[in-house]
């Protein structure tokens, strides 16, 4: 057993850390304050290959493994949660389905530009009435007869979609009919941003992750060629469950990055801030918060790495990914909360970055399956019962 990161993963981590601290950290505050999507930074990291880390080279990506991807998202999240979410949504949710079930032509046309960083991707699953119950999709797609297999006409809407308005390619799910047992048949589609009848609606005002865009997708008779059906008709639900399994690893990694940022900020603060004539870090009440943060973060990181490793070994990683995401996101909320406590009043004001980490971390308990949904997934696997 070797618990050291392989050499190229260390080089990747150092490279990303270096770029994030030298080039990105100085612009974070301004973007967050102005709620501005970091177009220029995204363009640069695209050139460096960060927008297709686990996608094979012949599909436009960097051809690294899931472990490398998790290490990268952690390092990005450690400096900037918004950028971590932008990259995770683009990679796992935007590129992921095309890599998994895309045809050769679809990969050529859509995946290569995305994985090589020229086009941002997004994934539209959630709807106003279909969140945790993502099978409750109301958006419908019907096939209109015509040349070249006809045209899919999509009506409906999506909500809370990361990278909305900035993506060039959207992967979305829609109901394409009913199965014999009466359950909905859900299929996935590739929707280019300039599709007639498709538009981006309102962007959300959020608690955190202010520089990432979260918005509505509106379909009113949006027309896409039959060739843009992604995977088999009716396979959309199965595909997205597999995509979410992988995506959870990246949200877990983002959570670890945010938690680590909170710890990184708290250690020097606890060593230098003095009260009662001594550093506050010499009070057990403070020191033990740091001890707990450090311990939990280490455990969370190991769970994330293990899930990534299982995936890279081609083994079943669904349970491990749900456990990693659940634990890491809750650690992230605890650790960022503790960081504010360590900083006292200074932690509550925007002069120090820890309040941002706290606001950003909360999303990791919600996106790509809430903590409750992760517990359902885990409990069902362990009990073999239909837990509801």
């Amino acid at each position: 057993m070797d618990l050291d990161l392989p050499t190229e993963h260390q080089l990747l981590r150092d490279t990303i850390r270096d770029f994030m601290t030298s080039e990105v950290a100085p612009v974070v505050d301004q973007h967050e304050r102005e709620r501005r999507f970091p177009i220029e930074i995204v363009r640069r990291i695209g050139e460096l290959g960060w927008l297709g880390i686990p996608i094979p080279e012949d599909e436009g990506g960097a051809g690294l493994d899931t472990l490398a991807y998790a290490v990268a998202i952690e390092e990005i999240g450690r400096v900037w949660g918004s950028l971590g979410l932008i990259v995770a949504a683009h990679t796992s949710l935007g590129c992921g389905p095309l890599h998994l079930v895309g045809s050769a032509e679809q990969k050529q046309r859509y995946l290569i530009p995305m994985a090589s960083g020229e086009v941002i991707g997004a994934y539209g699953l959630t709807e106003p009435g279909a969140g945790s119950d993502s099978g409750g999709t109301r958006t419908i797609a019907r096939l209109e007869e015509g040349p070249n297999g006809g045209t899919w006409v999509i009506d409906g809407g999506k909500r809370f979609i990361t990278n909305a308005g900035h993506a060039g390619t959207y992967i979305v799910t829609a109901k394409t009919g009913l199965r014999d047992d009466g359950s909905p048949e859900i299929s996935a589609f590739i929707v280019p941003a300039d599709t007639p009848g498709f538009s981006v609606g309102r962007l959300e005002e959020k608690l955190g992750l202010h520089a990432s865009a979260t918005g509505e997708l509106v379909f009113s008779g949006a027309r896409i060629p039959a060739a843009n059906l992604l995977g088999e008709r009716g396979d959309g639900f199965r595909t997205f469950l597999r995509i979410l399994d992988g995506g959870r690893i990246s949200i877990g990694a983002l959570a670890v990055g945010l938690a680590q940022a909170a710890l990184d900020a708290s250690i020097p603060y606890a060593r230098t801030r003095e009260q009662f004539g001594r550093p506050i870090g010499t009070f057990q009440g403070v020191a033990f918060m740091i001890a707990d943060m450090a311990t939990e973060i280490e455990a969370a990181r190991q769970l994330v790495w293990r899930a990534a490793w299982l995936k890279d070994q081609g083994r079943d990683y669904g349970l491990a990914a749900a456990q990693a995401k659940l634990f890491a996101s809750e650690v992230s909320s605890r650790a960022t909360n503790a960081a504010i406590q360590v900083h006292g009043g200074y932690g509550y004001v925007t002069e120090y970055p820890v309040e941002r980490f706290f606001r950003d971390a909360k999303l990791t308990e919600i996106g790509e399956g809430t903590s409750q949904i992760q517990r359902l997934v885990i409990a069902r696997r362990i009990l073999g019962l239909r837990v509801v």
Partner: protein
Amino acid sequence: MRIVVLVKPVPDPASGGERLGANGRLDRAAVPAVVNGNDEYALEAALKLTAAAPEGSEVTLLSMAPASAPETLRKALAMGATRGVHVTDPALAGSCAVSTAKVLAAALKQLEFDLVLAGVDTSDGLGGTVPAAVAAYLGLPFLSYAARIEPDEPAGTVRVRRISPTGYDLLEAPMPALISCTQALGEPRYPTLKGIMAARSKEIATRSLADLELDPSTVGGAVATTQVLATKVPPARGATEVVRGTPDEGATRIVEFLAQRRII
């Protein structure tokens, strides 16, 4: 264009933990090593020059360093160098600048090149003498403090802008030549992830003194021409004052600060 870049692994200056062992030599285990900062600028210049004329171009890294060096050289390979040559031998421990130059010159004799690029100096030794000494051993033209490098391959010459106290000098020499590089050449690139992947399979050849046909008794610590007698850590810097506010407020505060100390 075939370019050899001289790169030295040095203790990471950002770690702040650089220290000497009891024998006055650097404690290399104390801090992680990185490629000397100036050498990354030299490498960047080499990569730009070869990208401009890719046909038959290659960039070879040459390093004399302890056995752990390949790990450090990976980053330089990931930036885009073609291959590495690593000279290492137990007899080289404690080498002075003269030995270092002798060994690098011997290694260069076994390589084919149009240009050799080096950093102007290192962040650990700071000698700034190795490049000139290597050029002297090989009888190569030596162009120092380069701020711009313009080879003319058909003519077989290279022009260099050398930074001078009053501006710059324009130098020209036949190739092959050795050039010491300043940061004015331009910021080194970040390795791309594809570069990191590609670096895995790039060759780092190891050379011993025997491979270079050098007599071990003529180089290394035993015949060092200089000796470190003592070292002193500079006093810790006082508290830093960060000036915030509008440019006018900032300027006023800085003037006050300097005036209080009778600097202006």
